[in-house]
């Protein structure tokens, strides 16, 4: 089953065409990676898919429905979530509150019950807090629950974003460079986390420069270059593709590819 279908997508900024004539579709229940050199249009693609940008042309279908031009909160309600390359954290809120915002669409949020703190809101908030704490434990941040997010270390914030996204119970989760700036041990934790998320039935799309992570976890890879599709296919195929090696991976990576990538 196709979860995301992109047809003839284009987006430009001034004279720069960030995405042009891009078409691809992603199968549900797999881990997909999007790779390509800096400026290939990976983050722009995420911004288009999540509704933060409106495309100049083209069509995006999520779960079989055309969603082109829908605002992000409507897409979130349909089961689309993402994390950000440059962290987008609610810094003055505690870690658990950050994750509770992710529960927003699933909990009671009436204005009058909130103002008068009616028992219904108290109960629903208590449930939300419990679920959020469990998610923090799931991503390994249980000890940070009541710490203001602004005081947390960088590596922890990467996982906090994942927990917040998971709180919304997404069907499709877009991860924008979750391992950027992480050391080897932290990258290994992200690797494991991605596989556990996928095992829970969430379709994952990963944008990442760490090739051993990408090659290790992905079922399917899409390669972008200058806003266009350069190649797509299973890991082994992409690794051997001369055009991909030329544009992005380079010969060293191709040689490294001969060594089995660390399994998660």
């Amino acid at each position, binding site marked *: 089953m196709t979860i995301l279908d992109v047809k003839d997508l284009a987006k430009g900024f001034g004279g720069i065409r960030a995405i042009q004539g891009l078409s691809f579709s992603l199968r549900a229940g797999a881990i997909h990676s999007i790779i390509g050199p800096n400026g290939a249009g990976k983050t722009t693609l995420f911004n288009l898919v999540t509704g933060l940008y409106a495309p100049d042309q083209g069509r995006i279908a999520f779960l079989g429905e055309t969603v082109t031009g829908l605002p992000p909160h409507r897409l979130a309600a349909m089961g689309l979530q993402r994390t950000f390359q440059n962290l987008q954290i*609610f810094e003055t809120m505690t870690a658990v509150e950050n994750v509770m915002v992710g529960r927003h669409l699933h909990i009671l949020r009436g204005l009058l019950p909130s103002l008068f703190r009616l028992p219904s809101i108290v109960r629903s908030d208590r449930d939300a807090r419990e679920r959020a704490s469990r998610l923090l434990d799931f991503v390994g941040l249980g*000890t940070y629950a009541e710490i203001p997010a602004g005081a947390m270390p960088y590596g922890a914030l990467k996982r906090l974003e994942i927990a917040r996204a998971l709180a919304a119970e997404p069907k499709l989760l877009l991860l924008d460079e979750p391992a950027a700036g992480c050391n080897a041990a932290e990258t290994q934790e992200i690797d494991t986390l991605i596989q556990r998320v996928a095992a829970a039935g969430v379709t994952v799309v990963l944008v990442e420069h760490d090739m051993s992570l990408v090659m290790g976890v992905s079922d399917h890879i899409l390669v972008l270059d200058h806003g266009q599709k350069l190649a797509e296919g299973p890991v082994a195929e992409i690794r051997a593709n001369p055009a991909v090696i030329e544009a992005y991976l380079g010969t060293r990576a191709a040689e490294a590819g001969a060594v089995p990538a660390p399994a998660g």
Partner: protein
Amino acid sequence: MRVPLPSDDWIADPRRGGLALLALVLVVLPIFLPNRFYYDVAIHAGLAAIAVVGLNLLIGYAGQISLGHAGFFGLGAYGSAVLTGTHGWPPLLALLASALVVAVLAFLVGRPILRLRGHYLAMATLGMGLLIFMVITNERTVTGGPDGMAVPALDIFGFSLSGRNKQAWYALVALCLLLAVWLALNLIDSPVGRALRALHGSEVAARVGGVDVAEYKLIIFVISAVYASVAGSLSAHYGGFITPDAVGFLHSIELVTMVVLGGMASTYGAVVGAAVLVALPQFLTAFHDYEQVMLGAILIVCMIFLRRGLLPSAIDLIRARRP
């Protein structure tokens, strides 16, 4: 190791400790008010605090500026004045009707202008405030124009509260302030409040998380306008006379200054900010002509050394001294 919850700390737990402490302060304060003049200062501070607690929800928590809230304050005040004075409505009904009109107006004005951000939003709300000021100043037949108009005494369930009855007014304002603070605290610690704080922290992340950012900005704009309107209605009845000064730009600035001085995103800070800024000029009268200069200097010094505002900075100090 699990880090201790901040709620183990009574200062940080707004509902359990903070509200009780505020109530205690409000009950004990009259002992230190030697005469009617000091009661008057306390009542004015309390009335300002109600408006500022509401404005702090908008500025401190949701991160949206308004330089026109005196407009809503003024509409509440003039609404009550006209409906009770000219049309003989019961004051409570007039207060509620004025608040409803202000809510509708804030909704209609807020829809287009809350799309704006930062300085542009500041300009737009400034324009809105000036517009309300001009209308109130020019509609002489209704509002008395620049000369102002008299307002009948507040009359609740048969009890007539003239502005001269300081003790009764003090009690009423204290109760209203407690209610205002309680509602604000509830809101902040609810899904609505979390959505507001989230969109302040990162609008993109809030939107992707499912928060309809435009809707929530509008909700809090309307709520803060209603706070200002109610404070305006009560002020009009207490003072017994209103002039367009209450609607003016300087009053809007004063309200924003109280939010910032007390501490953004701190409800009790808003109360402290209002109290200090109302009381301070009374203690500075000794400086005669230089009163405004002293006030300005104190504000500058506060902003340099206590940038987070009076109350959050004070709490930090207390925490730092504990072992």
